[in-house]
Every structure is written in C-alpha cells, then in structure tokens.
C-alpha cells in the first residue's frame, strides 16, 4: 500500500500543477484586449481552448466572422503569445486561429515570432503600431468619458474634477461610497489608458500628473465639459455597438452557448440614466456647441 501511494503521489502533484497552469494561462489571457472593442478576448468568447503539457501551451481562438480585420486578429494572437511567454515555466506556445481568411498566415507568423510586416509580406507596407495607437487613443477617450460622466452623475463639480491629479483621483476612488465599487473599477480602467496621451513619464512620477487631459495633452475646460463629453460619447457608443454586433455574430456562427456565462454584463446605456444615480450631474449641451471638441 505504502509503495503504491508513493508512486501515485507525484502523478497527483503533476496533474494539479497542470490545472493551476491552465488557470494561470486563462488569467493572463483575460488581460489581452481586442484593440477595437476594448474588451478582453476571454470575455468576448474568442478563446476556445487552453491546453498545457509540461511547459507547452496550446491556445485555440476564433473570431465572429471569416472576414474580421487581419491586423486586429494578428495583434490579439501576438499579444496572447507575449503574455504567455512571460510566464516562467512556459517553453513553447502554439496559437491556432480557426476559420479566418488569414488563419494560415497568422498562425505561421505568430508561431515563428515574425513581425506583422514579415507575416504579410506584400500585403502590408509597415507595422501595425499606427493602428494600435489609434485604438489605444479611442480606448482612452471611451474610458475617460465613462469615468467623468459617472463622477459628474455622482454630484462632483466639474471645476474640481478637472483639477485633480492622478493621486487625488485614486484618493477620490478609495473614499467613494457607491455601493458596488463602480468608481474604483472605472478609475482602474481609466488609469490603464491614461498615459496613452500626454507626457511620456516614469511610472513613479505619474501620480503628480493631471488626471484629466484631452488627446492633445491639454487640460479640460470645466465650462465646456458637457460638450466635450458629448463628442467623446460617439467613441463609446460605437465601441459598444460593435461589441454587441461581434458577440451576436459569434453566437450566430458557433451557437448561443459560445459566449462565456461569467461574462461581465455590458451596460450599454450609460447615458440613459436609470434610477439610482444622483441628480445634478447631467449635462445637456445645447446643439450649437457640437463643434466644441474640434
């Protein structure tokens, strides 16, 4: 008996470790966003499988249509490869995109660690960093609008908000009393994209930087804040609309059950104020202010 136990024990340890590793991979993948939708690839239901065998990791992923833009598909695959490669125990990674017009090229390119340009040869005339940048800026705008609109709805004064620095914003979040931690979440999401714009600065010094600036790095004007947010709102509405479309197309392609049950419920109507939010923060800019964000 005791001999049998001794033999079995390592097997149990190995399998538990494999389970842990699979969980670790999923958790890392959750931090990879679809650049266009600004949502996690796991929450979107794009990742279909994670397998771990020792140090080898295999990841399966899919997209809502055969035609989804190749650059975003490549960026997601490459970002997944990078976050998994950073795990100390990983020795090799296979990422398999399925049923996509450029599946073969992307799978081969990512496996060989080739750049985007090398992967696509004549069909690209440079790297994808410009397009990545465009969508990082959009993510910044969307997250800033969601946060500012929420803070205003909570009754905060525009003049106070535009003067906050990053440390003060964190302090505001940690002392907020909203019941489900929404302020904290919105601030955390915003902080992840805040330094896409403005001065390039060491992380240690970021706390002194102004919390709210526009994409050009300029401070916000408290008097024009309503019109400014109205202009930004287009970006969020568009991303959420696309997110809904992509989820729907994925479900139509692979079946309703394909979207993860644990997915965060997306609340599209953040400017349709439902009961419960405090009055006083609603901006209704007059129509003639529509050009204010130029």
């Amino acid at each position: 008996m005791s001999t049998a136990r001794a033999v079995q024990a390592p097997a149990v340890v190995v399998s538990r470790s494999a389970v842990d590793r699979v969980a670790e991979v999923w958790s890392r993948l959750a931090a990879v966003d679809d650049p266009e939708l600004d949502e996690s690839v796991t929450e979107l239901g794009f990742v279909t499988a994670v397998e771990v065998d020792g140090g080898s990791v295999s990841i399966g992923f899919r997209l809502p249509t055969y035609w989804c833009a190749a650059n975003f598909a490549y960026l997601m695959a490459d970002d997944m490869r990078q976050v998994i490669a950073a795990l100390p125990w990983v020795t090799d990674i296979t990422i398999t995109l399925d049923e996509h017009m450029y599946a073969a090229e992307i799978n081969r390119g990512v496996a060989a660690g080739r750049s985007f340009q090398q992967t696509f040869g004549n069909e690209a005339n440079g790297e994808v960093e410009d397009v990545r940048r465009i969508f990082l800026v959009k993510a910044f705008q969307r997250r800033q609008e969601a946060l500012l609109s929420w803070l205003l709805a909570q009754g905060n004064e525009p003049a106070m908000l535009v003067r906050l620095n990053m440390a003060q914003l964190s302090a505001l979040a940690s002392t907020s009393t909203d019941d489900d931690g929404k302020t904290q979440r919105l601030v955390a999401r915003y902080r992840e994209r805040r330094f896409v714009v403005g001065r390039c600065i060491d992380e240690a010094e970021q706390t002194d930087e102004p919390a709210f600036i526009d994409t050009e790095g300029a401070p916000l004007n408290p008097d024009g804040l309503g019109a400014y947010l109205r202009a930004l709102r287009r970006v969020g509405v568009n991303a959420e609309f696309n997110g809904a479309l992509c989820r729907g197309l994925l479900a139509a392609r692979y079946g309703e059950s394909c979207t993860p049950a644990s997915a965060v419920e997306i609340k599209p109507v953040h400017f349709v104020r439902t009961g419960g939010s405090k009055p006083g923060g609603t901006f209704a800019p007059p129509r003639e202010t529509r050009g204010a964000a130029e």
Partner: protein
Amino acid sequence: MYRTTDGEEIFVIDGHVHLWDGSKANLKNVHGQQFIDCFYAYHSNLSPKEYLWPKEKFDKYGEEAMYNDLFVTGYDDMAICQPTYLTDFYKNGFNTTEANYVLKQKFPHRFIVNGAFDPRDGEAGLDRLEELASLYKIQGVKLYTAEWRGDSKGYKLSDPGVQRYFERCEKLGIKNIHVHKGPTILPLNRDAFDVADVDDAATSFQNLNFIVEHCGLPRLDDFCWIATQETNVYGGLAVVLPFIHTRPEYFAHVISELLFWIGEDKILYGSDYGIWSPKWLIEKFMAFELPESVSKETGVQLSLTAKKKILGLNAARLYGIDIEAQKALLEDVRQPAAVGA
C-alpha cells in the same frame, strides 16, 4: 406605403436591396461560401424569430419572394437595387446590375437600379461605366471597397485612378455614390474600415452625393465626424436599423447620435433585403420612440417628420422622385404579384 393610426400615408423608398445568388451552384470557392454564411449570421443574429429564413431560401430567394417581401407583405413602395458583383467568389457574380435590371423590366415603377464600378479596371472600367449609364440609365453606383480582385484585396476612394471615375460619373449624371466600407483593404497594417477616404472624395466632388452605407460601421464615430463637415455626405441605415429589435437601447443611442451630428435630412432607410425584411423593420421603426432620457440629453427628437424623411423623402430628393406622381403611377399598376415569368 405605411399608414399611421391617424390614417396618414408614408411613402417608403428602400435605399438598399439585393437580388443575390449565393447558392452552391454559383460558388467559385470557400470565400463565396464564407461570404453568404456571414450574411446569414447577420440575418439570424438580428432578425425576430418569426422572420428567420431557412438557409436554402437565404442562399437564393428569387424574384417572386423578393417582390412579395418588399411590396406585398412589406411596406416598401420603391426600392433601390445596390449591386455587389464579387466575381472572384461567384461564377455569375453575387448580385449584379444585369440581374437587378431583369427585375426592373418586370416592375419598372418599383425599382431603381444602380450600377457599380471598380477603379482597378482602368480604362475598360470607364467604358463599362458608360455602357451601364446608357443601357440602364443609372443615377447611382454602389462601391464595395473590400472587393477582392486577383491579388488585390480592395481599394480606397483616395487611390490614384478613382478620381477619373468620379469625373466620369459627374459627366454621365450619376450623382449618387453609395459606399460600403468593408474589411481587408490593403495594406493590411492600416485600419481596414477607415472612412477618411470618403471625406477626401466628398470634398473634391461637391456635385456628387456620398451615401455611406451602414453609416460607416464599424467606424460610426468617425463617420459622424466627417458627415458633419461635408454637406454632401449621407448615412444609410442598413445594419443599424435591425438593432431596433434585439438591442433597442443601442439603436436609441445610435440614431440619436446620427440625428445630433448629421441630422434628419441626411439619413436614409435601407433594409439590406434579403438580410432583413421591410415588414418588421418598418413596423418597429414607426413604433419606436426615443427614450426621454436620451432625447433630453441629446436634445434631438425622432419625430414623425424625421421618420418620413428617413423612410422616403430624403431618397426621393437624391433620386429625383416626385412622390405624388409616383403614388398615382403605382395606384394604376397595383395588382397581385404576377412574377415568375
């Protein structure tokens, strides 16, 4: 014709319909299969259950079903056929001006048939455009910038050579340029859906109208911006409108953004038939009211006047349709569908 509960008649011009053949017999390759499958995913994702079609019907529904769905059970009075050739994917093309014109000959008062051009066809394409203009008297073209052609995976309106086509359109009296931005425009490293090239074209050709189908989706935010700056840029509601059923809150957001930024005079209804059917789209659109919270915040209304413009008056203006005269014509020919010849 849609009749309100007060008895008011609303003349409906459907700005975006297709007569396609996505059947197995017409397929050239896997891309053709994936193309019609993708359309079917849009159909099944956004249609009400009672309006879902079996895939066989969807692949090739034919003239009779189309006439019936648009004008007999549906509320359309007229419809604009927007061709999508896709000759690299389908043996006889997917949805051609030629096939659309057969339909128009049977029902001349119901259909407006648009042509298409592809700037990659060079000089021969210009001749072909002349031919389309003389054969079919087209007033508009549909451009599908993502169409594959040999090694090319698409083009931009700012590409060299496109200008000559717009100049020829002006000369031939083709004044409505419907643009569908699709994915996979080369080079692949750039944003495949970028609408900035529409902006350039609209600025250079002030006498042409640019109707951006699907309101630039998935770049609706960028589209709103260029459309506010150009007086000759319009938004086609195909793909946006069906959200009214599955996700009315998104539809409320998007239509209010469109009303705010581009205004009710520049939005055109389109069903995108056979992806969706006019009957349910229009019933839901007429019944739809912007939530008070949205209209209060944006300061816009989706009034009955706005709905009438979107459903027909705006398209009538672009295509020179005298609605009263057209009503009288259709009254004369109104009869059960005698299709199938």
